[in-house]
């Protein structure tokens, strides 16, 4: 792998950019790998990367039915924050946020991490109490957040209407080191680094079955033939239920569409991320100038990556009240992804009833921010059989009643 640097850009400029090499190889699958990861989204690639980097396990394949980063990793609104309420969440999301800080240097790939600040508006009395509680919990967890007044909100976001008729802004939970990153680049950066370690990223290859002997995983069937492995990691977001079925167990989650949209590009007008959970909408401005907008999930089970239009309408209607200036904006594109929702709105990182088979899913509407931390913990779990980061997120928590209830803490997709 050739190193990317300012010097490399200068060198290539002098020779008409003929020297850039492909960022990752596209090999044919080998007969056998130590570890196979199903799903080349951010979480699958990060898991592979930290298996190699932290544990020296490099005979790894990442198998992807479409193209890498083409799932939810390439469809999300890129919000990164770690101001969760419950301790296990704060631990894994803050680990991820910390890793994001210098991920560009670590991967030698510019993921454009922009810690511009994330603001969660309180627009009801209930939310004020909720967010003040979160701020206090965050203080104990060592996550830097603070409760700010409506005046400070207005100072940070001049385009906001803080005395709207229905839901005036009463304050906000502010995480200064939250922000955004370039989602594709996160997948591409990890893929390039994995490939450089000798790992195989096999795209256009669908896993169609999980092979097992005596209760142990021994490989997978794919559209490119059978491939053996010692350990298997299922990291397929919306398709977690499908893969679990192939492996012979069930998961407590459902697949639902979540949509987002972007406006025409305009001049810089808002340099932080704002989330308005009571009215169900959030917004940030991309480097290209587009307003990136998201809201709540659709209502019914769906695998089509298409949502219902009235949800877009609801989201925009909600935001127009708080940001009157966007009422004249044209919306350019709208899309959907299939998110895997668990009962307590927290992910599952766990061993499974099938020996040697691990699951990382259920990130639902908010897993982009978690990618580095999730990969870190999942790699530790797969390599050593235990990780303090993933422990609380095990599959048996539903049976044991140990929920990590974040639905109350967020109440909106993010």
């Amino acid at each position, binding site marked *: 792998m050739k190193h990317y640097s300012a010097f490399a850009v200068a060198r290539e400029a002098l020779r008409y950019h003929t020297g850039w090499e492909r960022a990752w190889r596209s090999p044919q699958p080998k007969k056998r790998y130590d570890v196979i990861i199903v799903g080349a989204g951010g979480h699958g690639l990060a898991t592979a990367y930290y298996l190699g980097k932290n544990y020296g396990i490099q005979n790894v394949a990442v198998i992807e039915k479409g193209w890498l980063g083409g799932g939810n990793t390439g469809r999300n609104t890129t919000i990164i924050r770690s101001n969760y309420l419950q301790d296990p969440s704060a631990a894994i999301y803050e680990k991820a946020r910390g890793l994001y800080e210098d991920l560009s240097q670590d991967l030698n790939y510019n993921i454009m991490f922009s810690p511009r600040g994330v603001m969660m508006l309180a627009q009801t009395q209930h939310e004020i109490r909720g967010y003040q509680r979160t701020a206090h919990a965050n203080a104990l967890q060592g996550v830097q957040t603070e409760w700010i007044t409506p005046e400070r909100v207005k100072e940070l976001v001049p385009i906001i209407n803080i005395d709207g008729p229905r839901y005036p802004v009463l304050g906000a939970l502010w995480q200064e080191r939250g922000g955004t990153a370039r989602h594709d680049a996160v997948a591409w950066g990890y893929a390039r680094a994995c490939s450089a370690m000798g790992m195989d990223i096999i795209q256009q290859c669908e896993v169609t079955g999980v092979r097992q002997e005596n209760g142990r995983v021994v490989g997978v069937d794919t559209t490119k033939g059978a491939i053996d492995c010692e350990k298997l990691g299922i990291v397929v977001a919306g*398709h977690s*239920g*499908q893969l679990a079925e192939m492996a012979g167990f*069930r*998961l*407590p*989650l*459902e*697949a639902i569409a979540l949509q987002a949209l972007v406006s025409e590009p305009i001049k810089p007008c808002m340099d932080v991320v704002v989330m308005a959970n009571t009215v169900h909408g959030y917004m940030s401005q991309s480097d290209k100038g587009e307003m990136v907008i998201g809201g709540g999930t659709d*209502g*019914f*089970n*769906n*695998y*089509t990556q*298409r949502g*219902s*239009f*009235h949800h877009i309408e609801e989201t925009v209607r909600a935001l127009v009240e708080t940001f009157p200036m966007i009422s004249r904006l044209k919306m350019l594109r709208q899309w959907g992804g299939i998110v895997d929702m668990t*009962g307590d709105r927290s992910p599952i990182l766990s061993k499974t009833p099938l020996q040697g088979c691990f699951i990382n899913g259920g990130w639902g509407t908010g897993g982009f921010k978690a990618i580095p931390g999730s990969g870190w913990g999942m790699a530790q779990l797969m390599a050593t059989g235990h990780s303090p980061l993933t422990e609380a997120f095990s599959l048996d928590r*539903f*049976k044991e009643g140990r929920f990590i209830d974040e639905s109350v803490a967020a109440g909106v997709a993010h």
Partner: protein
Amino acid sequence: MLILNCPYCGVDAEETELAAGGEAHLKRYGPGSSDGDFHDYLFMRENPKGVHFERWRHANGCGKWFHAARCTQTLEVFGTYSAQVFEPPQKIKDAITAKRPGWTWREFS
């Protein structure tokens, strides 16, 4: 936009008139049941990529609950039927079989 025919008032209702109620034909387990049954009842949905039975309410219409058979992979609607049944009527099953031969669901097919 999803359009479902309400079997009670006969209206072809657009999604904005309806409220989704999740998976249908759940068997309810309560006090006295085993931990496993209670866990499955609370958390384990079928979540199929294909034929799905679900509950809907004609919320901004007649207000009644009803059932729908739908495909989660194509968004095709096979039909709607009364909420007062434990499994879909034969007519609905036949409509599904015509398009998805071999489909199955927990206790029936």
